[in-house]
């Protein structure tokens, strides 16, 4: 390493619309993890949503407009970090594809995409973080959200950091890598099918015997929490960042908000 003093990286936090509306604590946990790792975190006000609801409904024009806004809002940062594999995947993998054929925006989107990371992957793969300073007494199980797992290869990073949390015991569930049935608008367009899929998931969660369910995507978490609670199962549900940031004592998802 050179001995010149390195400036802390400037990180723009892409909050994601669900965290903004439903679970601000995930945003604050992300900020804490990033700041503890030596980053300067800023939250550009000009962000809204990554555009997936439009993109996955076939509405390309609106998606492109939203993507342009997002790229512009985050262009000045060294890194763009999102506490969601699904939204980070959208920014990193799908934005460049959206602008195919538009030379100017294609270049901008590619440069932007190169700086985008999902939170867990950023901490471990980019910053080289190996452990966190957090305590969480109890058993947890971890659900691999689809986009994070298959678009961005997130599987080992959160587990590795979780293994450093003192008091935490991991209980892997069966089919942790199988979809929970959320699928964005899918869960309201095809509620019966979505319900069947999430039932399968909650029975695996239950069978793991873990007290707490963790994952890296709020959409999936709300889906699984909602089902667990409807079934009257007493499993606490949290975003993995909350536990890693030592904020595992806030009320769990569906149990209240600050």
């Amino acid at each position: 390493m050179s001995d010149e003093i390195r400036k802390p990286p400037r990180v723009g936090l892409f909050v994601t619309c669900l965290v903004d509306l439903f679970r601000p604590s995930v945003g604050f946990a992300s900020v804490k993890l990033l700041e503890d790792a030596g980053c300067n975190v800023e939250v550009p006000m000009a962000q809204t949503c990554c555009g997936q609801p439009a993109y996955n409904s076939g509405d390309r024009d609106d998606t492109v407009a939203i993507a342009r806004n997002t790229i512009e809002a985050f262009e000045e940062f060294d890194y763009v970090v999102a506490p969601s594999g699904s939204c980070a995947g959208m920014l990193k993998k799908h934005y460049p594809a959206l602008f195919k054929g538009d030379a100017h925006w294609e270049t901008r989107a590619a440069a932007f995409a190169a700086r985008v990371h999902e939170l867990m992957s950023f901490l471990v793969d980019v910053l080289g973080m190996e452990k966190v300073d957090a305590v969480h007494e109890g058993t947890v199980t971890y659900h691999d959200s689809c986009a994070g797992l298959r678009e961005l290869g997130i599987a080992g990073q959160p587990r590795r950091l979780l293994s450093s949390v003192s008091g935490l015991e991991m209980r892997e569930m069966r089919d942790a890598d199988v979809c929970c049935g959320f699928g964005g608008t899918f869960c309201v367009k095809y509620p019966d099918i979505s319900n069947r899929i999430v039932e399968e998931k909650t029975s695996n969660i239950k069978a793991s015997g873990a007290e707490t369910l963790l994952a890296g995507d709020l959409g999936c978490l709300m889906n699984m929490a909602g089902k667990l609670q409807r079934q009257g199962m007493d499993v606490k549900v949290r975003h993995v960042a909350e536990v890693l940031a030592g904020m595992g004592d806030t009320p769990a998802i569906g149990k209240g908000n600050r």
Partner: protein
Amino acid sequence: MQITSPAFKENARTALADPQLQKALVHVRSGFIDKRVKAMDALPEFDALRDSARAIKDHTLTHLDLYLERYEEKVREAGGVVHWAETADDARSVVLEICRAAGARTVTKGKSMITEEIGLNDFLEKEGVRPVETDLGEYIIQLRGEHPSHIIAPAVHVTRDQVEADFRREHDHLRPDRDLSEPEALLGEARRVLRAEYFSADVGITGANFLVAETGSSVIVTNEGNGDLTQILPRVHVVIASIEKVVPTLEDMSQILRLLARSATGQDMSVYTTVSTGPRRPDDPDGPEEYHVILLDNGRSSMLGTEFQDMLRCIRCGACMNHCPVYHAVGGHAYGWVYPGPMGAVLTPSLAGIDKSGHLPNASTFCGRCEAVCPMHIPLPKMMRHWREREFARGLNPATQRYGLRAWALFARHPRLYRLATSLALPALSFFTARRPRFRYLPLAGGWTRNRDLPAPPSRTFMQQWREREAEKQGAHA
């Protein structure tokens, strides 16, 4: 085949409420998946093979006309006849002509999705020719008067008990005390019935897994050997295959073959791989006197050069549906046409029209597992999204969805407006919840709250809270 894809939602609901079906689907969820992983792990070059298989198919599709012509030439040289069929109708007519010319009353059939696609069985029956399915799964569903629910395991939706009941109902010769409790006993019983049929058939019809341009051969893989008997015993052998089945050489075929069974059933190889080239030659010990190939287009050529061309790489291994959570939930019949699961969600709109099958590419969570396991690297979710885009552009999706989406997009496109709206919405919502931690019901969110609770949002967004935190910090510094 009658298309019921427009009723996908109702089909799905029926399927979800069918205890027999749900019981049968458990096998898909476990068996296929574990076996595939084992087979893959035992072949270190699996991923390299996938890349080269993709390259072979991409190359062939770019020069499809050339390879089809070469294939035709080689079939002719070997003494066979090639018939080009643009539509399902054309293909059916050719089959009937051949049957008539052969004076056929009974035809045996190997397992073939393409004959399902053109609705051949119903057609032949109407014309007085009796088709007999010889693949055990196909035989079972023929007895039941159903259609396949899976492209490699057509009767996967049927439980063993149901099969036994079907056999007892349809096979008059079965004594009530005959023990059929083991799957082997059922297989033995089907074999016994089918043996007789092989010898009475005048024409044998098979599909093809590959057509080889270099040699003019057609290739089928089976596990029961029924394909061999179907094509060797009758006097006339008819192969029906869609145009994208062609590959340049035998070497290419064998490369892709290494992926097929591993991806499908987790076997290294299917039990039988049968290569047939032309009719029986003078010194062959057996084989048909006539060999016909019907090359069917039925919409495929219109996919060439479009965003759906990659779908033509499909080798019908079924891995995508074996790994699909939606397929696991509702099974194959809910999709309402020949091809179920993710591959069907892309193919059905191409072949049967998006106006009838709009649900299929929409009924996906985009979990991406299908693409991850597809041996031919077909970007299935991406193509489903392309269908959604076409649908949206043509205004085919429901108005409520469109308006909702446009209204949401209006805010999402304008950050200031969005901030304002969200900061107003949350206090309103928390008024609803009256400090309850979650909703059991929320107007306009019935799709969600019918089956699960919705966590109540906080009274202030992250953005509002963040701004306050930053302002406090500023204040502290000042």
